[in-house]
């Protein structure tokens, strides 16, 4: 039996809008193994959340998967019926949403929302579910969980809401956890606690994790693999050491340079100049080229191929070709 949990090939997701069709995700392929953590990083608006939602089959009403397949534990999720998909969700795959305030139902108690997946998928009594729910809240570090069970989302702080979301997602011990910026609203001590919790579950259950985050510290701590996205495309992918130690794509390099360093008081921030192109912007060649300090002529005309850096590390950048023959260095634009 293979160790592969999720295998996404050539995922294309688009939106219907007043201005026509917009492609938010453009032909992304990746895989997650059991017990593996894949971190997705990339610029804000590059399509990380939409990729996650595509996997869940929960795109906004104007979004749809145009192309591609999502194989999860041997089944292609894109072809499942609504009902079959429903049975997978929450039990086998669960997701932590990015905005906890709007993602929690304002008129149902935290307790209700937490008990629901437990009772549904584990078929346990309400009382039992309540007990387990309290345990879950305790695990995510919420003080006085008994009381919180009866509260509503607007009575919680931002971080508490986020932790409630996490507790809900973890409730049924899924095989695959998709966490969209799960710890942005948490202070570092609790963040560490949550990351530990996920790590433990991963070890215990052999759970696969897809984590979307901006916090490079978190990436360094939890990731096995990292996928870097830019403007709807995957630009680089590799195991965590390789990405951190030898980032290949100019965007990845820029990203890592922008991380503020706590330990260095004199640190100066460095942002990548320019901004993310619009979804409907028609950019020929490499989508990063307008911002790329190394852009070459070929970058403007032709999409880069995918290059293998080492066994696991792949990158989509013409520079690789240049590097391979080592002759065209001078072509690098300033």
């Amino acid at each position: 039996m293979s160790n592969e949990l999720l295998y996404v090939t050539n995922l294309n997701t688009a939106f219907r809008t007043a201005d026509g069709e917009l492609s938010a995700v453009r032909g992304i392929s990746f895989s997650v193994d059991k017990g593996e953590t894949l971190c997705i990083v990339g610029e804000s608006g590059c399509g990380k959340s939409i990729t996650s939602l595509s996997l869940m089959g929960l795109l906004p009403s104007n979004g749809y998967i145009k192309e591609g397949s999502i194989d999860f534990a041997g089944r292609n999720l894109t072809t499942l019926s609504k009902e079959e998909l429903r049975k997978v969700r929450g039990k086998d795959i669960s997701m932590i949403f990015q905005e906890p305030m709007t993602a929690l139902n304002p008129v149902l108690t935290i307790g209700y929302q937490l008990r629901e997946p437990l009772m549904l998928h584990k078929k346990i009594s309400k009382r039992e579910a309540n007990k387990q729910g309290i345990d879950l809240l305790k695990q995510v570090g919420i003080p006085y969980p008994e009381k919180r069970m009866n509260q509503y989302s607007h009575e919680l702080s931002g971080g508490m809401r986020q932790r409630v979301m996490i507790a809900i997602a973890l409730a049924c011990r899924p095989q695959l956890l998709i966490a969209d910026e799960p710890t942005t609203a948490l202070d570092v001590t609790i963040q560490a606690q949550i990351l530990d919790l996920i790590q433990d579950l991963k070890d215990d259950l052999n759970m696969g994790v897809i984590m979307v985050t901006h916090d490079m510290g978190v990436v360094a701590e939890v990731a096995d693999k990292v996928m870097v996205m830019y403007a709807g495309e995957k630009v680089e992918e590799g195991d965590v050491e390789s990405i951190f130690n030898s980032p290949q794509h100019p965007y990845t390099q820029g990203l890592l340079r922008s991380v503020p360093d706590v330990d260095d008081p004199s640190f100066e921030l460095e942002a990548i100049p320019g901004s993310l192109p619009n979804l409907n912007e028609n950019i020929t060649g490499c989508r990063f080229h307008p911002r790329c300090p190394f852009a070459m002529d070929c970058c403007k005309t032709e999409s880069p191929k995918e290059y293998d850096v080492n066994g696991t590390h792949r990158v989509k950048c013409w520079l690789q070709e240049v590097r391979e023959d080592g002759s065209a260095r001078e072509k690098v634009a300033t």
Partner: protein
Amino acid sequence: MEVLEKKSLLKLDGVQKYFPIKGGFLKRVQGHVKAVEDVSLDVYEGESIGIVGESGCGKSTLGRTILGLEDITNGKVLYKDSEIQSLSGSKWKELTKEMQMIFQDPYASLNPRQRIGNALEEVFVMHTNLSSSERRQKVYDLLKEVGLKEEHYDRYPHEFSGGQRQRIGIARAIALNPSVIICDEAVSALDVSVQAQVLKLLKNLQEKYGLTYLFISHDLGVVRYFCDRVVVMYLGNTVELASSRDLYSNPLHPYTRALLSSIPRPKVGARKDRIRLTGEIPNPANPPSGCPFHTRCPLATDICKQAKPEWREIEKDHFVACHHVEQEVVN
């Protein structure tokens, strides 16, 4: 960046905010969540003051209370010597021109039925006499400044990504060049590159206009980079206040230390041993007696359970509320 003449712009005096807890069949008030217990603070003109602390310790509530969005339970907030809570009508409008807030939840703070272009333009409609084409131009500039595009003008909030929405919130807050901005997790949803861009923008504005920031954040790296001083809050109380340099190099309060030790470093395998807080997490509705941190403090002794530690200036401009600081310092 020594502040020569410290002029207090915003003064918090014993600010306290309790929320009623309702329950039972008739939804009677059964107690109070003591979200902000006792916060006194001088915010100086032109500085950035970071507010950090455990999730749920009352940072957002403090921010909202300062702006008068929550009724204050006790205490006073003085802006330029006038009490904010008693402002009304036109005075209030004046104030909002000078004091702005970036909300923690950008999605919820945008009207779902308003195109974001209009949402931004509205700020100018309310406070300026600009013509509509000027306003529009301003909005385009703002969008560009926060890394969005003119094309985004006609979109609705739900058509954005989390980070994009956050930037809209930022754009809205800086639109009028206020003097004070309360940033509640203003950059948390941004990737590091955009974050860097936005932080630079905020810094530039500060340099240009002498802006003052109250910067609530969990990202201690960002706080260190961005803030001149940092307040650490725990369970509705301030527990430590120092310049960021001092705080990061010489944290005194055990909670601050635990916090700093837990920062994940962006290097693979760089994970240090962090201080794990054990013990019971206190309930804000029924905070522990004495020092609020004693239930989880590795140094806690009997006195911590009985007496609330005083807010003391241990070193110059370094305040802390802990019974055991001297002892620590000596050690």
